[in-house]
């Protein structure tokens, strides 16, 4: 084959030269939007050959190289507001003379930065490895008739690439030739659009011109100039059916040749792949918001202190009392510069209000917390022997806040296969019962059928039905199974044999390939009942019936399925000469075309089955007279079918507990959108099956089909429909209570919205101003529907939808879940991406933030873990702000009493402080209490601590030996009160006391006491000043100090016990109600038990 191609090309040199001129001209005109590909890189000898610059076939998903890692990573890290802030503080501490040592903020910052850099570096190294694996994948390139083995990354545009069966295409190829007779090949595009459609692709050969790379998978425009020795080059247009996409796998075809058109980062797959950007959780965003508030407080505090300092200093004698004279340098410094450095000093002094320790703690909490997901046994799937996987720990708490779930259908909701469940022939219902121990059996009255109560339909009818199933499809038998049946033709059977009926076991493993799984399911279903489709051979379909006889049918016509007609038909001629038309399709397209009296019987079944969530198809047949056939043959137009009609039920096997999961999610007020590359019908039936759509759900459909009603232009129709749906769903609907769940009553009309890819691109890409308006309408409609179904989506469109919702008003938290490579873009786009460890490879899992083995685990992940994490992190953050406010406020107040000299209270204990609370906070399961509450509480406590001790120090002689306490004692008392109060506050808020809580809370108090003794009990050789030497011990020797500590702690905690707290506005969607104070709750609980 290849040689033929080469010869062909060799011979067309002359012709091509001419042609090249022609299309150079053509190309110059629209240089921007097309590219010319020289097949096999054969430049024209007559003209100057400028090799077109295309990118090579290297895929780069890594972010850093060895060289740019350090600067780039540092830059990215310091873009983070907190890191930058701490860097500034650190620099100020280094440069300006400040009360605290630069080490106290430099060390944690350095630690955080280093750990993050190592983590990111490791991740990038993994990406490099994965890239190399792909880029060094061996491929075969044909060069001047020789086959050259090379690496995938060396493929250039214009190379002719040979691909063997079951290999993936290394780049986007135009199919030139295939080993199959009909020059088609089969590919599975599972990793692209998620469906294992096996698509026929035609092959062509020669040089071509095609559009610039663009991400739409289903769009490709090009022209090919085919050169023959003796004739003008033929021009053929190229469409998406000629394009083999990178990432797809060649199936059922030994070998193909194709010319590379798009390589590397320009392939459709790469264009559909979005870079993995770092995701930030919403909690982090709100932390940043809190941070800004506190930054405001910080700056104003520092400003206030600076101003007051200079006001105070302007009083005579205060600026430079004789006992504290300034140095020469201080005297010489410019006043404004001094003011500025003072301001900075105050900033640094108070900077602990925004502590580095919080970031470290939050990171640690998330990191360690994510282990709980990995450890959860409920996530363990015995089938794949794996549990959940956490790829990022930044988003734990986000799981508890999801408002929108975008789910892929295939492999996520469904298990990516279908089964034949039951059928109904002439109004009689059959159900296949898979009795354990019995062999698969046919419809025989003895053991198979269920409907003994029913009158059985004609045996002939049954068999006719089964034949119809066997014939009316486009399924191909996977050939090289090595167990070819004998081809001897048998007499056409007529349903005589009743015995036998056993199938040879190997047949069971017979592989079928079809463009949709339901066809396979039907053929397999028929096979179970004794009719086996053996294959198509030169326009003859072979069937083996129950008697192991082979029946042959001439295939006269196939009318393929298309979404507009929603049915497919075949016309076959049996051995006996009868011409039969079989038609299979959705009920809506079959019913109008069959005898009305039959319809009603069937309709009942169809509707019942449909509402149970099964996918239903109807089959009809008609015996065509020869005249009718001729007529049909000529016009191939639809004859009005006038015969029986059958119905069958299929189910896409749902993932375990998919429906329950979906229901639970909806119950939690989460909106579920299904985004699938699948056909609308399949997707719809799945939605019914998952109870996303229910009987009462009114479907609003916005698809190519609804758009094509009438003669008007699509755009107008789109406009009209959008407005209509908007009126229905948005304007007339009563305002939906968020989180109210779906009502079962009719009063609350549910809407389901269906849109397909083509229409969606119209919505997004419609010209001029309409686009944003349409998008708006679309979004509003969608938000008012309980479920939205988007079918026929390209991966990028999925991401587009997610992005649209993500950026819509209120910026809801989105979660995407999927298992295939086609879901990657969606997974990356959403706030939280979840991969299912399904069958479709590992791309989704690799790119996801969390991976779980089954869909059912989503429920626990979101409603269990997510909730907990959210509560914990929220409390942790609030608590941290509170604690630091408590901590910094006494210092602030102290400035008023020490002449604004930035004297601080207790520096050594700061370091201690961070370690103290890290552990506590990590394990506390606590409530969300509003930020303001904590802030006010922090202020209250801070004031209390300070002034309590201040009045105590009205007389500093606190010991019974009359000795006085100094400023270090003062600080130690305040700090001790603080530590005990905030820890006990935590203890008070702790609802569940596990041994860890006990250990941590009491342990940290004990540690504080121990540490203070230890720190103050020894002269530390490395310290310049032993400022805290024995201060703590001395404090404990004073009874008054004890008393004031007890007093202040109790006083601080009193309001906590007594005040009614309103934590209602927690924004968790009704999940949490009023958090009442301990006492009130206790009362009502007791009251309840008593009454």
């Amino acid at each position: 084959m290849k040689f033929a191609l080469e010869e062909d090309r060799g011979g067309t040199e002359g012709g091509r030269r001419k042609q090249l001129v022609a299309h150079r001209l053509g190309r110059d005109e629209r240089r921007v939007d097309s590219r010319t590909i020289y097949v096999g890189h054969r430049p024209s000898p007559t003209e100057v050959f400028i090799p077109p610059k295309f990118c090579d076939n290297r895929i780069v998903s890594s972010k850093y190289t060895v060289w740019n890692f350090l600067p780039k990573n540092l830059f990215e890290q310091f873009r983070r507001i907190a890191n930058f802030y701490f860097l500034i503080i650190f620099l100020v501490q280094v440069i300006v003379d400040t009360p605290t040592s630069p080490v106290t903020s430099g060390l944690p910052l350095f630690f955080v930065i280093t750990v993050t850099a190592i983590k990111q570096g490791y991740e990038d190294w993994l990406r490099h490895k994965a890239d190399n694996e792909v880029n060094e994948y061996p491929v075969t390139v044909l060069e001047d008739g020789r086959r050259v083995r090379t690496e995938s990354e060396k493929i250039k545009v214009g190379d002719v690439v040979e691909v063997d069966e079951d290999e993936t295409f290394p780049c986007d190829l135009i199919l030139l030739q295939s080993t199959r007779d009909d020059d088609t090949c089969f590919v599975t595009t599972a990793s692209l659009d998620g469906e294992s459609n096996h698509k026929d692709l035609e092959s062509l050969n020669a040089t071509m011109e095609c559009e610039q790379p663009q991400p739409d998978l289903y769009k490709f425009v090009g022209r090919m100039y085919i050169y023959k020795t003796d004739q003008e080059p033929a021009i053929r247009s190229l469409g998406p059916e000629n394009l083999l996409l990178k990432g797809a796998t060649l199936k059922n075809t030994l070998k193909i040749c194709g010319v590379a058109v798009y390589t590397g980062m320009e392939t459709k797959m790469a264009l559909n792949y979005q870079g993995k950007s770092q995701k930030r959780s919403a909690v982090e965003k709100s932390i940043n918001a809190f941070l800004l508030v506190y930054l405001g407080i910080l700056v104003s505090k520092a400003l206030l202190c600076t101003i007051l300092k200079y006001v105070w200093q302007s009083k005579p004698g205060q600026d430079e009392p004789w006992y504290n004279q300034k140095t020469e340098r201080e005297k010489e410094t410019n006043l404004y510069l001094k003011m500025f450095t003072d301001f900075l000093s105050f900033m640094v002094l108070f900077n602990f209000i925004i502590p580095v320790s919080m970031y470290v703690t939050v990171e640690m909490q998330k990191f360690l917390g994510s282990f709980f997901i990995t450890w959860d046994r409920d996530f363990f799937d015995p089938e794949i022997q794996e549990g959940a996987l956490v790829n990022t720990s930044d988003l734990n708490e986000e799981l508890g806040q999801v408002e929108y779930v975008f789910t892929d259908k295939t492999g996520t909701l469904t298990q990516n296969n279908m089964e034949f469940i039951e059928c109904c022939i002439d109004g009689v219902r059959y159900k296949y019962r898979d009795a354990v121990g019995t062999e698969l059996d046919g419809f025989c009255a003895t053991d198979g059928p269920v409907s003994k109560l029913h009158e059985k339909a004609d045996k002939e009818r049954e068999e006719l039905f089964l034949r119809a199933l066997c014939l009316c499809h486009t399924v191909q038998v996977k050939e090289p199974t090595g167990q070819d049946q004998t081809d001897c033709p048998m007499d056409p059977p007529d349903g005589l044999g009743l015995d036998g009926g056993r199938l040879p076991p190997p047949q069971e493993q017979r592989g079928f390939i079809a463009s949709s799984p339901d066809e396979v399911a039907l053929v397999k279903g028929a096979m179970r009942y004794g009719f086996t489709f053996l294959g198509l051979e030169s326009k003859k379909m072979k069937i083996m019936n129950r008697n192991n006889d082979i029946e042959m049918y001439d295939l006269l016509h196939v009318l393929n399925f298309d979404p507009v007609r929603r049915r497919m038909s075949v016309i076959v001629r049996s051995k006996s000469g009868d011409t039969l038309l079989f038609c299979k399709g959705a009920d809506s397209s079959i019913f109008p075309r069959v005898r009305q009296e039959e319809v009603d019987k069937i309709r009942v079944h169809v509707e019942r089955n449909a509402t149970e969530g099964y996918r239903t198809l109807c089959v009809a047949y008609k015996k065509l007279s020869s005249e009718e056939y001729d007529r049909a043959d000529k016009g191939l137009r639809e004859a009005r079918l006038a015969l029986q009609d059958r119905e069958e039920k299929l189910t896409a096997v749902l993932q375990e507990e998919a429906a329950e999961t979906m229901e639970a999610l909806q119950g939690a007020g989460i909106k579920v959108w299904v985004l699938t590359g699948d056909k609308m019908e399949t997707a719809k039936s799945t939605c019914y099956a998952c109870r996303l759509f229910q009987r009462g759900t009114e479907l609003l459909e916005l698809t190519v089909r609804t758009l094509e009603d009438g003669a008007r232009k699509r755009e107008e129709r789109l406009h009209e429909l959008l407005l209509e749906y908007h009126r229905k769903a948005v304007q007339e609907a009563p305002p939906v209570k968020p989180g109210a769940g779906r009502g079962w009553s009719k009063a609350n009309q549910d809407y389901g919205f269906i849109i397909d890819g083509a229409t969606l691109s119209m919505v997004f890409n419609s010209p001029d101003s309409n686009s944003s308006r349409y998008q708006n309408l679309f979004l509003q409609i969608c938000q008012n529907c309980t479920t939205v179904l988007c079918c026929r989506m390209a991966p990028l469109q999925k991401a587009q939808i997610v992005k649209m919702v993500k950026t819509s008003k209120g910026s809801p938290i989105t979660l995407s879940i999927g298992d295939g490579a086609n879901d990657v873009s969606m997974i990356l786009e959403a706030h939280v991406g979840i991969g299912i460890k399904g069958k479709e490879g590992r791309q989704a899992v690799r790119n996801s933030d969390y991976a779980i083995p089954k869909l059912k685990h989503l429920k626990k992940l979101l409603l269990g873990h997510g909730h907990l994490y959210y509560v914990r992190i929220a409390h942790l953050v609030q608590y941290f702000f509170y604690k630091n406010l408590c901590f910094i406020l006494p210092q602030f107040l102290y400035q008023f009493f020490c002449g604004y000299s930035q004297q601080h209270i207790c520096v050594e204990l700061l370091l201690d402080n961070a370690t103290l609370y890290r552990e506590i906070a990590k394990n506390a399961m606590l409530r969300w209490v509003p930020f303001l509450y904590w802030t006010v509480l922090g202020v209250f406590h801070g004031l209390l601590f300070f002034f309590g001790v201040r009045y105590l120090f009205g007389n500093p002689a606190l010991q019974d030996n009359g000795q006085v306490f100094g400023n270090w004692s003062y600080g130690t008392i305040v700090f001790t009160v603080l530590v005990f109060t905030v820890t006990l506050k935590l203890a008070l808020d702790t609802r569940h006391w596990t041994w860890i809580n006990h250990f941590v809370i009491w342990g940290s108090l004990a540690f504080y006491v121990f540490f203070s003794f230890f720190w103050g009990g020894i002269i530390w050789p490395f310290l310049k000043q032993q400022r805290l030497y024995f201060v703590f011990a001395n404090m404990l020797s004073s009874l008054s100090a004890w008393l004031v500590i007890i007093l202040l702690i109790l006083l601080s905690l009193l309001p906590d016990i007594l005040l009614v707290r309103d934590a209602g506005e927690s924004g968790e969607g009704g999940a949490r109600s009023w958090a009442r104070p301990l006492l009130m709750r206790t009362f009502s609980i007791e009251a309840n038990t008593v009454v």
Partner: protein
Amino acid sequence: MSKEVSTANRPDNTAFTQQRLPAWQPMLSAGIVIPGFVLIGVAFIGIGVALFVTSKNIQVLEKDYTGVGETDSSCSKCVALPEINCQCSVTFSLSKLFEGPVFFYYGLSNYFQNYRKYGASKDANQLSGDLDSFKAPAESCEPYRYNSNDIPIVPCGALPNSIFNDTFKLFQLVDGRKEEVPFDGKGISWWTDYNIKYRNPTVIPLRNAFNGTVKPPNWPLPAYELNTTDPSNNGFINQDFLVWMRRSALPDFRKLYRRITEGDYAKGLPAGNYSLEISYNYPVVAFEGRKKVVFSNVSWMGGKNQFLGIAYLVIGSMCVVMSLVMLIVYAKFKFPDEE
């Protein structure tokens, strides 16, 4: 789940990993809380009363001798004409026994010993007897590091330099005769400061250690002559020096100067007239400060401090009131009105 598939991947089934640790949920029922509050309240009131009474019984005598504002003070002249060891006196009379042991404090106000740079302006190494830092005092001592001739100051820094240098002598006026009340200058500083934290250089005689150094500019005598009679109170372990070095927390402060524990006055200061003679050296007028002396006796809770007692009483009674309120609320819930 019943069949245990043995596999390495399966997560451990421990209570911790599955977040199923046994948890104790504290249930503060009214039956515990109300008695608890009453108990706390009663205890607090008890402590409060004890504190209050104790504090009430502490005798305090304060005398301001700044010499500014009061015209009758003999110290006014020292303000007007500063000279070294300007002598002035304050007289007072006690109508009843001032119970001992009596503690004698000096107090300064509007004096910012807690000023950061001031506080840091010393060399801890010098003060722990490190001879190396005698030659090169710490940078934090600026501008009291070297004198104008570049000779290191020991002890350097603003804090040592500004040591309180008024001295007092107390006389009881008995029949027109002045009888000196003996002061005890020992044990007025923290034990750890005196015994561990501050050390003199181990050079004998001590003055040799100070060769090549100068005294702080405000000091009348070098460190090694602070108390020439008692080597255990000389140099850096001089008690007055140690008291001064323990900086005060607030700008209005008092520091212990002497105790009156000896001789006839061990039981306290008997009723009578007294005269406190002051060598007035320490200038405070420049920064609007004031100086005072305080006689006080102490109790188990330290010096006189009404705040603590009052606070305890208030909190204690609040607890009791609160528990009453809770009791009413509780009763209402528990015994709802019959309809």
